[in-house]
């Protein structure tokens, strides 16, 4: 299971890495913004992406739209401080499969990952 973490905060990526490694996921790639992620998805070929919204250079929503133009199926979880209902709807319309609002507990992130992979028919 290859998982890409897209967040401009190294602290947040480390927290997510810690949760993922406790779940047994160790094949991880990191990107610090949407542009960085777009340059890495081709080689890494993720099975799941966790994507922040507010990032410099290219934000998460723009990344999701660009990524969905080339990949319609790989599940994406938006992990963001953007908690308004209108933002969630905007993200889902862009192609996000699930949504986690920061701050989050490790249990909540684990649960969202499991249900996202399950819905996508990917073995966890």
């Amino acid at each position, binding site marked *: 299971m290859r998982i890409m973490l897209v967040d401009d*905060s*190294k*602290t947040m990526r480390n927290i997510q890495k810690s949760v993922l490694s406790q779940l047994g996921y160790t094949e991880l790639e990191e990107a610090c913004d949407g542009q960085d992620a777009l340059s890495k998805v081709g080689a890494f070929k993720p099975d799941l992406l966790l994507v922040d919204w*507010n990032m*410099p250079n290219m934000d998460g929503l723009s990344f999701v739209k660009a990524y969905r133009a080339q990949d319609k199926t790989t599940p994406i979880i938006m992990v963001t*401080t953007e*908690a*308004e209902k209108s933002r969630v709807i905007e993200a889902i319309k862009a192609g996000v499969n699930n949504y986690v609002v*920061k*701050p989050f507990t490790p249990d909540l992130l684990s649960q969202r990952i499991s249900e996202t992979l399950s819905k996508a028919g990917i073995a966890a």
Partner: protein
Amino acid sequence: MEARFITPFIQSVQNVFSTMLQLPMQIGEPRVKAGKNTGYDVSGIIGMSGDVVGSVVLSFPDDAARRVVALFAGEELSTDSPDFADAIGELVNMVAGGAKANFEGAKVSISCPSVVVGSSHLIANTSDVPVIEIPCMTDCGEVAIQIAIKTNANAPTQAASASA
């Protein structure tokens, strides 16, 4: 500044500290900040734009900032480390993001955060909005939220509702 903006920040900062740091927080009485000097050593600053404009600052004394960052990042970091600033920036990002979600009917965007590290640094506010400071206490030490925001009368959605 409208009082309706204060409660969302209190709820958000308590939520961020309890969820990410398992750190309970006691909230003091919000007050209008007099003078410019924060008296703090580390500040995370984030801007708001859209229907609400202004800035939000999360400030700490040096020792409290080090302890909070150690809890958040899982390791002790030097204040001159980029990772230290990253952690403070992410905290203020979550506080501002959580608060704006509870500004009813307002569409607000937040900027990428900036972080200032310096003993008793000065944060000058150029806007005409009074700064409301909310003092908070944790087992790691003191934290303060300084809010200087106002409704943007020129924002498209505000203008639309005004003309409706």
